[in-house]
């Protein structure tokens, strides 16, 4: 039994408290100093397959939630959820308001305090962070973080509009830029400053398609040859079709629990050891450098420090590769390669599963697995959860995986969330 301030008591398992009672106790504790630092575990995670779905928002979310509930080792009752955070850009605007309330209503979580979290493509990365903070703060014991996006039921014109809403509308859009354009500017500058080449990006594309080929949840389950990827249709010079992720429909759901209630649900949790986040100026032209993402550097530094690890400890990383150049830059910003050496890292195959120093995007990444904007961040967490528990398809299991991270970026780097997961808790 832990002792909190002013005589308040906190059971180390939480099992002896009913949920109603526990909430009353937590409400009382709002005014009491908390002395106990709670650890946070992932007890379940699931998603839909990414791709072109016939299902609508409610159907996709129900499927992801159902898969997450089913992945919990013990019976899981959604009424046990204290809070829910659901990331979504609400692409298309069809359910722009109260998205999250609609979804929880249709997944057994009626009445649970819920909100939509919006941070562009990093929406559910930040939903996960918010969920983690809710438990760390002692306000909740069981929290759902998820994400959803329906992107492929719009006309091409509407889709292109929505794909650009997360940039600096007033300045970048009037200069003709959507994200393929902004990332193309970053790529060309990286080539210029660091002598990287488009071939380096092709290596990333080929690797991620190879990783995603065996992933049953991936949008693009197909291998791509170097020659084919090198000669793709030019989307935004120098980026070709094979440098760009697809627009996907999909939903993902992760269930977190405080350490004192974990054993109610599983004996095999994955620990969410830390959460780091950062932000940067929205427009590319307002940043001192466009060949690094300061938000990623801040987020990873904070997350690594809190987890007591360095980049060399990481076995696998789900990295935000909305464009191949984004992965090249991320390998530098996350500390896997020296600054400016991301191209060489890719060329040397250092991110290939069970061959390189760290497996980058074992799921296939956004490039192959797909990128349903709001669902991507928690979708990355689903992959890391399964990898660390050894429950992915055997042919794509990262060997001896102990530590995995997720890296979720909003826009061209205005926001970023990095999470560290481990088989073990923080020491």
């Amino acid at each position: 039994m832990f002792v909190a301030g002013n005589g308040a008591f906190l059971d180390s398992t939480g099992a002896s408290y009913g949920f109603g009672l526990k909430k009353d106790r937590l409400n009382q504790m709002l005014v009491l100093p908390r002395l106990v630092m709670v650890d946070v575990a992932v007890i379940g995670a699931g998603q839909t397959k990414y791709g072109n779905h016939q299902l609508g928002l409610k159907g996709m979310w129900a499927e992801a939630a159902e898969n997450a509930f089913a992945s919990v080792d013990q019976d899981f009752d959604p009424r046990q959820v204290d809070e829910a955070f659901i990331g979504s850009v609400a692409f298309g605007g069809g359910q722009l308001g109260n998205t999250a309330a609609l979804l929880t209503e249709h997944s057994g979580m009626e009445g649970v305090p819920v909100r939509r979290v919006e941070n562009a493509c990093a929406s559910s990365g930040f939903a996960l962070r918010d969920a983690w903070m809710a438990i760390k703060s002692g306000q909740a014991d069981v929290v759902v973080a998820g994400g959803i996006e329906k992107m492929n039921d719009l006309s091409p014109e509407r889709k292109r509009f929505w794909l650009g809403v997360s940039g600096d509308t007033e300045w970048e859009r009037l200069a003709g830029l959507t994200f393929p354009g902004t990332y193309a500017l970053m790529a060309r500058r990286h080539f210029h400053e660091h002598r990287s080449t488009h071939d380096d990006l092709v290596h990333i594309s080929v690797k991620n398609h190879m990783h995603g080929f065996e992933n049953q949840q991936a949008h693009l389950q197909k291998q791509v040859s170097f020659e084919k990827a090198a000669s793709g249709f030019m989307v935004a010079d120098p980026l070709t079709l094979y440098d760009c992720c697809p627009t996907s429909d999909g939903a993902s759901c992760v269930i977190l629990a405080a350490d004192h209630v974990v054993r109610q649900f599983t004996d095999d949790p994955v620990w969410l050891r830390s959460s780091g986040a950062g932000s940067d100026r929205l427009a590319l032209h307002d940043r001192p450098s466009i060949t690094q993402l300061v938000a990623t550097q801040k987020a990873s530094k904070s997350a690594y420090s809190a987890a007591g690890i360095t980049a060399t400890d990481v076995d696998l990383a789900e990295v935000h590769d909305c464009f191949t150049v984004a992965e090249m830059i991320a390998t530098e910003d996350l500390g896997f390669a020296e600054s400016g050496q991301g191209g060489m890292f890719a060329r040397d195959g250092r991110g290939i599963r069970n061959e390189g120093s760290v497996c980058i995007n074992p799921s296939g990444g956004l490039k192959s697995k797909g990128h349903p904007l709001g669902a991507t961040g928690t979708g990355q967490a689903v992959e890391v959860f399964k990898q660390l528990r050894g429950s992915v398809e055997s042919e794509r299991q990262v060997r001896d995986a102990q530590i995995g991270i997720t890296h979720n970026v909003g826009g061209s780097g205005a926001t970023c969330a990095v999470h560290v997961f481990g088989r073990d808790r923080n020491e």
Partner: protein
Amino acid sequence: MSDSSQWKGYLISYSNDSLLLQSPYIHNDCTVYGPDSDSTTMAVAGIQYLQNQGHHITAIHLTESIDAKVIFMSTSVDSPQRNEELPTATVDWQVIEGEEATLVLSQSDAEHFEFDEPTGTEIMDDDLFNDMNAAWEHECSKQHVSQGAYVSQSQYLEGGTARLSLASQSFEGQIIWPPRQMDSSGNRLPREEGLLSDRATVESWTKLSAAGAPSEFSLRAPILGGIQTLLVKFDEGPRGVFLVCDDVDYSPTIGDQVEFGVRRIYAQEGLIRYGLKAIPSLN
């Protein structure tokens, strides 16, 4: 005799404190506007040329087809078309619009002006001319509802001076552009006072395919074979992103010098949004 040369993508002839501007494009033996030009963009260029020559222009009488707000935001030159209370005595310049894509800016009341024939015209492709005109006509109609980025009129006008004239802020020795609201201590920054120089260096560039271009360009990007955007750094330090003038055949290289001219960007709700576009520097 007059001096004949090029200025911001237009042909000019300057004589006796009067200025002739002419589009370089010829179609069916007529002078026609380029894909992103009109009388407003040419009038801006003309006023800027005269200011560059040392003329202090307070106000100018514009024609109906010229957007007086854009002229004011681009050049700080007022007009009776924008400001009905403007004293007539202050309006000592006028714009005279020719039948073809030609303007004269003058202080004279003369009905006849003599300029040297500007040189440097080029024939405009028939398909390009017809397709672009049709695209703009469709885009400018109020019935056309663009699915493009929604930059409201008030938002467009709020940033208009910075967008059209490169008006910049100055704070603690730093030049800031585009304008920002607060510094890192939470203090409000001063309003724009100075202007950036009209020259910048290309730091990166891309050409978006028609399929990848934002939807507000969806009518014209296929005709142009895509749209080109530059990331540039001004001599004073700030960076910006700019479209390349649609009518310029230009393959950028990092390190190139560019200058800027006001051009049409796109139309929404029947209103043309103007902005600066990059023009490869002739010098």
